[in-house]
């Protein structure tokens, strides 16, 4: 039994803010591209929480806002509204200098196109050294060697991108992203241009970096193999997080995947499109609060007419 004073104290105590402990936090994130007479809303109130050291995948249809989200998280793009925080840094209120520091030492980035990640006229090692040079002016060759070794491409150190396979290039790109010991790695379809075997290698390299260096890793992917290999897969639809799939290992060693719909802080919920189509749900639905769940029914004929 709580005394009244306890209850009052409990009510008056400051609650931890939403996602205060999260390593990556997006709250009601909005990104609108404005051009003459046309507005493209790429993110429309997206919520996302990722803990430190997590390895997650973000999936979604083309144009759903995945790449925009990644650009925002990497500090390459500035959101229009909402809250975005990565490793304690508020992405909306950062100055240009903070943003530069953020890109240099907090995040690392890997693009889909293998050729786009590396400067074609530098060797693998020089490519890894480049971010160090840009950030500090110093080149830590030992660290570059370690990273290439960790990712299994130590033998490619002296080769230029044109002399490496796609998988090797992507693994060097991961090393480049890790060069300045970032807290977060963001990869935009890193296996998109690779065959399945090579994809596995690259994903393996990412997972190794995640596990051994403890770096939080966010992968945007279409690749079901990748999506199936991570602990958590977040689905994005129309600029919002729509679903989350959690994977856990069952007692018999099998992987159990459970898909959840995402409920945002305002209580909004996206119903899967095929559910809506199957029950012919349009415009309105009827909700009923049951003891341990909420029932959702299509509006009946009378309701529709009213």
């Amino acid at each position, binding site marked *: 039994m709580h005394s009244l004073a306890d209850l009052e104290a409990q009510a008056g105590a400051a609650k931890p803010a939403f996602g205060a402990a999260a390593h990556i936090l997006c709250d009601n994130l909005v990104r609108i*591209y404005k*051009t*003459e*007479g*046309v507005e*493209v809303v790429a993110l429309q109130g997206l919520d996302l929480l990722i803990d430190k050291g997590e390895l997650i995948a973000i999936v979604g249809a083309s144009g759903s806002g995945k*790449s925009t989200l990644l*650009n925002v998280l*990497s*500090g*390459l*793009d500035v959101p229009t509204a909402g809250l975005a925080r990565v490793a304690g840094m508020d992405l909306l209120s950062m100055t*240009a200098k903070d*943003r*530069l520091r953020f*890109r*240099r*030492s907090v995040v690392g*980035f890997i*693009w889909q196109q293998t050729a*786009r*990640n*590396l*400067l*074609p*006229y*530098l060797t693998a090692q020089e490519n890894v050294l*480049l*971010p160090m040079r*840009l*950030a500090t002016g110093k080149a830590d060759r030992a660290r570059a060697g370690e990273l290439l070794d960790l990712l299994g491409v130590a033998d490619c150190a002296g080769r230029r991108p044109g002399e490496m396979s796609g998988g090797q290039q992507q693994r060097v790109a991961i090393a*480049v992203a890790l060069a*300045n010991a970032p807290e977060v790695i963001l990869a935009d379809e890193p296996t998109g241009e690779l065959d399945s075997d090579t994809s596995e290698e690259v994903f393996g390299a990412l997972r190794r970096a995640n596990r051994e260096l403890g770096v939080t890793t966010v992968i945007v992917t279409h690749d079901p193999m990748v999506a199936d290999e991570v602990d958590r897969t977040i689905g994005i639809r129309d600029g919002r997080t729509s679903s989350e799939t959690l994977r856990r290992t069952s007692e018999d060693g099998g992987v159990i995947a459970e898909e959840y719909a995402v409920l945002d802080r305002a209580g909004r919920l996206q119903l899967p499109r095929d559910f809506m189509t199957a029950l012919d749900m349009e415009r309105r639905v009827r909700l009923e609060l049951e003891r341990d769940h909420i029932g959702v029914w299509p509006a009946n004929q009378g309701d529709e007419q009213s």
Partner: protein
Amino acid sequence: MIRLLAAHRGTAALLALLTLTASLLVAGVPRALEASLDESAATMLRTSPPLTTALTVVLESTYSSDVPDGVEKVTQANDLWRAALPPNVRSVLDHTARFGYRTAWLQISATRHRYVSLAWANDVAPQIRYVAGKAPGPSDSPKRFEIALATEPAAAFDLKLGDTIEFEGYQGVITGLWEPLTPGGTFWNSYHSGMSEVVKRRPPLSEETDLFITALADGNALAKGKMDRLYNWTYQVNPTAITARNARDVLDGVADAGREVAGGPRSVSVATGLPIQGMGTSLVTGLDQLIKEFLDRLATTRALMAVLLGGLAVACFGTIALAVRLLGSRAHGSLTLMRARGGSLRQITVVGGGAIALAVAPAALVGAGLSLLVPGPSLPILLAGPVALAVAAIAYGCVQTARAHRQPIAESRDDVVTRRPSPRRIALEVLIVLLAAGGVQLLRTRGLGDDPFMMVVPPLLTVAAALVALRVYPFPLRLLLRLAARRRDAAPYLGVAMAARAATGATLPVLTLLPALAICAYGSVTADGLATAQRLAAWQQVGAEIRVQRSEGFPADLIERIRRTPGVEQVVPAAVGQTNAEVGFTGRDTAVVAVDLDAYRKLMAGSPLDIPRPAAGGALVSSDLAAMSSFDITWPERMTVQPKGKIASLPGVDNASGLALIVLPAQPKYTNTLLVNGDAEAVRKAVPAGTVVRTVEDALAEITSVPLVSSLVTGLRVVTLSLAAYALAAVAIMLVSGAAERARALTLLHAIGLTRRQAKGMTVLEIGPVLVLAVLAGLALGLGLPTLLGDGIDLSAYAGLPFGDYPIDPVTPALLAGGVAVVALAGVYLGGSRAKSR
């Protein structure tokens, strides 16, 4: 930076090549021009009479009691006067010492119309040889002198060694007779003209001729005499010392020298060291007038070259900027990656700008170095062109890089719809157009002069025209789009649509192409106009294809013989001379031409000149005689002239120096000039010795061989062709810049059935509208520039007659601009095919 450049070495090499040639042109052409300006100044000084170019300090003893009293003082004064001249004049003088003094003309007693002057000059003794007697010695009386005469005047006056002549109370005893060591030449014809011969002069309205001789006397004896004397110290100019750069300074110096010599509070006597009042001293020179004329011509040349070089600089910079942009777009991916990997804007700008600097700076230096091979003066200012080009290119590269990478975002979505131009940009464009319009108005009223703003006006005008053309461009494009949309074939529509999409990227190409073509057309029009005007001037000077003159006249049989000479087609006899029209009290000096005007008109048919029709029953006269009902003349025969019509000038007759003109429209009784059509060589062989044969070609060669004119024309041609080449380079870069995007679009369209032919057509339609717009607008502006600039650039000095009195011939510039367009479109057509095949 070096690796980035090495990765894009093709583009970097193009950028370097463009910078090199541009530097060579902007440094080399002015250098060559300066050399020819200097050469022109030297030629002007060399060919002018030495006493005209020299500065002569004259001291008249009549007005000054402060005169040197002997040879020693005169010699000292020479150094003092030299030292008293302003340094900017002193520096262009040679070191020849030439001074002396002479008495006024004194009438020889017991003679009429015979005068003598006693003279001493420091430089005569080494140039003469005594054939009898000896040089004059000191005199024992201030009224009696020993004198020496040249043999020719002595013979003319019938004087012998030992004779004594009396003149105005003085006596001269002839102690020597001399001959010039080298008769003729500058020394006797110019510095001491009349000293070795008898000078004949006929005073106005006098029936008899006065004869003048000079007698040499001992310097000290003469200085101590009581006669009025005229002292002179002559300072000769070194012809190569006056250049285009120091001419104005020298002119100011001559004016200062004039004031200094004429005296003033600051002056001291150079003879005695005492202050003088300036009475009796003066500076005599024609140098100032010569320099003024030279400066006028210089200003015109520089103005014209400023316009052309301004245009060239705009075109060069535009093309280099296009190449910089191309290099920027090629390096965009690498720089974007560096930016995303943590490169600060400053780092990226340094890398991007540094790569451009690596390509541009050495090329500019090499270009400037190569320009040193062009003969001409080494001027630090000539380095300014290449340095400015390099700095502008690097600055543009830095700004471009900084703008492209200001935000580290890899993708931009501004392809959704084109952005409206910012108000700032519109304001800037309006400002440029207003400045250009105001500048043109100022230029028409004030001329180019030395005002830097004025020199910027023509290039600014071309830039303003380009901006206006860009604003107008969408309207014809829309029309074209509508027309293309009606066609069944989709390719033209797609091509024009691509052109419309590329419109925002067309700014720099149009800003480069239009000024290049405009100035190219202007240069071509000017060069053609100059050639036409020079030809016209040659015809004006000669008055016929061949003009044959003989002071003794042409007897009828000689005329007949010339007429029958094979190769001679037509001969019109004429009398050309001067007389005094008996008008008013003193008469009016007038040029007279007696010629059969009908025959003359036939002779001149097909020439660029018009010969007036004869007036029935009378003569054609210049307007200052036209009011008379009749008056008499004495040449070619005594006759009464009845004016029946007006004439301003007649080809081949120089009446510009204030002479009136009378044209007697009849075959003359006395012929001293033949106007001939036919073979000049045949005429030369047919005429007796001493006959002057002058052809239009001779006159034209004289006009065009003046160093300034030939180098101006060469400069015009070089700049015109360079501009055409730069225009082509600009189109090529424009084509290459859009190649990747075009190839993507064409590959896609090819996949859905676009044929190779259609692809080529589409590429032509994509590039064509901008090209046609720039060519047409550039050509129109180039042809309009002579009219727009009006009297701002007056080329009369080169043409030998008022410039601009001829119709503008658009053929050559149109061919040039059309050529550029055709070559460019052919390149585009082939380029389109290559893009497709990728």
